[in-house]
């Protein structure tokens, strides 16, 4: 029987391939929505792992998390410099590090920070931490080498790119891969960032001609500068509390008029809620598409079966069992649908992979695309629905009178 079915499918291979392809695309749509949403959720959750508590100026919690954890450039409001001093001296804080944005190099953000953050993000793979203000540590994915020198450019958040002609950083170390957008970042001492912008503010919009900030940067990093109550304002501070209890106390204490403390995980959970809603909408669209495809295919198969009345009826006249006729039609339909479904799962996976890779390149957040055991359920249901739908043309063939079929 299988030989006959295969010969029959081969004979109609273009029609069969078209139907299988439509099934595959409809399936791929649903699979890709599920996989992509999961990849974004897992990827961003992993990226936020190292960030226990972020403190910033009052404003959007979401923007604070996006800017500090995911390094999405946006002008954040600044909080007074004494906040960092307070945190560094707080006994509930294991370590705290400033996060200051501004410049970039070839589209990669230059982040001003302090030594504890280097360790907090996983430590160095090679070289050493910055000891002088004109030294930089690069993320794992930055295409520079130890010993390279570069000029920073103004970030897009401040307008068109403008080279800080006088400033030169030297690369002294490289971070271990973290699987976060920080792999694309170049880390420099926060004081260096402050000094450059002070110098430019002093020189005015005419450019960096007046002051010579490079000379000012050729100095050792001074940790005590961070403790100064007159320190420059900061957009964000990454805080590692000593205990969970400390984390909650710090979050409470630093939610006030001048500061806003957030757990990035908490903000992300809220985002995932939104993401989940979007996924539901997309899943509904995908389901609708699948239902339409199912109906269209049923119609195509019905037409096909009706055209083949004679053939199928003739089989019975020559001695084929009635059940065999039913089975042939049913199996043909199920085989085509099943093949389409399998290909669709592959296509959906490949599509989600391609999209995730694209997003990962843009954001620096690796997005793991993978199946979970529960994914099998909707696919099994889909196949079951196909098997049930296939009964309709099979019954039509089963009820076909062989005498009529012979006459055509």
């Amino acid at each position, binding site marked *: *029987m299988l*030989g006959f079915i295969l010969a029959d499918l081969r004979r109609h291979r273009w029609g069969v391939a078209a139907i299988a392809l439509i099934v595959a695309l409809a399936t791929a749509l649903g699979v890709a929505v599920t996989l992509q949403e999961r990849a974004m959720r897992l990827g961003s959750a992993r990226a936020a792992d190292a960030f226990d508590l972020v403190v910033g100026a009052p404003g959007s919690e979401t923007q604070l998390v996006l800017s500090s954890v995911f390094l999405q450039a946006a002008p954040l409001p600044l909080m007074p410099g004494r906040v960092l001093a307070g945190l560094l001296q707080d006994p509930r804080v294991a370590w705290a590090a400033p996060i200051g944005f501004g410049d970039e190099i070839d589209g990669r953000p230059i982040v001003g920070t302090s030594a504890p953050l280097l360790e907090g993000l996983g430590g160095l793979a090679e070289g050493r931490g910055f000891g002088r203000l004109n030294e930089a540590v690069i993320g794992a994915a930055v295409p520079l080498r130890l010993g390279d020198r570069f000029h920073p450019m103004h970030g897009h958040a401040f307008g068109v790119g403008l080279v800080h002609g006088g400033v030169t950083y030297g690369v002294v170390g490289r971070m271990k891969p973290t699987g976060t957008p920080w792999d694309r970042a170049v880390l420099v001492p926060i004081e260096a960032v402050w000094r450059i912008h002070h110098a430019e503010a002093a020189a005015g919009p005419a450019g960096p001609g007046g002051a010579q900030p490079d000379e000012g940067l050729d100095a050792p990093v001074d940790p005590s500068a961070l403790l100064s109550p007159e320190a420059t304002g900061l957009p964000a501070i990454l805080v590692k509390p000593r205990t969970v209890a400390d984390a909650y106390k710090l979050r409470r204490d630093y939610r006030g008029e001048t500061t806003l403390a957030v757990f990035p995980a908490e903000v992300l959970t809220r985002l995932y809620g939104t993401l989940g809603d979007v996924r539901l909408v997309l899943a509904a669209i995908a389901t609708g598409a699948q239902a339409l495809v199912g109906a269209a295919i049923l119609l195509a198969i019905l037409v096909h079966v009706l055209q083949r009345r*004679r*053939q199928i009826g003739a*089989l019975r*006249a020559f001695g084929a*069992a009635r059940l065999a*006729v039913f089975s042939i039609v049913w199996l043909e339909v199920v085989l085509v649908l099943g093949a389409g479904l399998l290909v669709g799962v592959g296509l959906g996976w490949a599509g989600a992979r391609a999209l995730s890779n694209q997003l990962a390149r843009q954001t620096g957040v690796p997005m793991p695309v993978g199946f979970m055991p529960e994914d099998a359920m909707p696919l099994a249901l889909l196949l079951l629905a196909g098997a049930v739908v296939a009964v309709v043309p099979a019954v039509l063939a089963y009820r076909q009178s062989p005498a009529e079929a012979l006459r055509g």
Partner: protein
Amino acid sequence: MPRLAIRDLVVSYPGLGRPALAVPRLDLAAGEHVLLTGASGAGKTTFLNIVTGLEPVAAGRVRWDEIDLAALGEGGRDRWRAAHVGLVMQEFHLFPGLSALDNVLLPARLARFRLPAALSGEAERLLARVGITRAGQKVETLSRGQMQRVAVARALLARPGILIADEPTASLDAESGAAVAGLLAELAAETGATLIIASHDPLFARANLNRRLHLDAGRLVG
């Protein structure tokens, strides 16, 4: 070999004034070769459908030996036909994409789970007997005359006691038609099968058939 006994058979279709077929009494001896003639619409096809069990018997009795087709359901008639009737039609109803051999074996394959090993050899023997030398050739590459030979081999695979041919030569040229007509008579004689041929072809009128039945407006004449 089976004898046919028909009593009080009436086949009516809704919307028609008179019955499409009315056969009060007909007996065919086992192994008889019968030519069935009649104009289009005279009831030849209805007659063949009834005696092969393709259509249910609504009124009357149609017995092949001890089997009354009127008493069988649709599945029962399918099984009885598979075991006892070989059919050759005007159109060959062969399946493109399959070889001549696979076409001969197809109904048997679709009638039971596992093909008896001997059947494949029997199919090759039959194909050789009807003059098809390359059993593995795809059926759509054969000439029409060869296709009908394959159909004859298929009809004989189950060693049926009844061989029915409906206009077997109508879509063939004269030479192929004569060859197929000859094969049908020879093979029916070899196996002892009862042969019923419905045909307009004067070829059969000249042939040496034991018996002629003529249908006129659903009634047997002569």
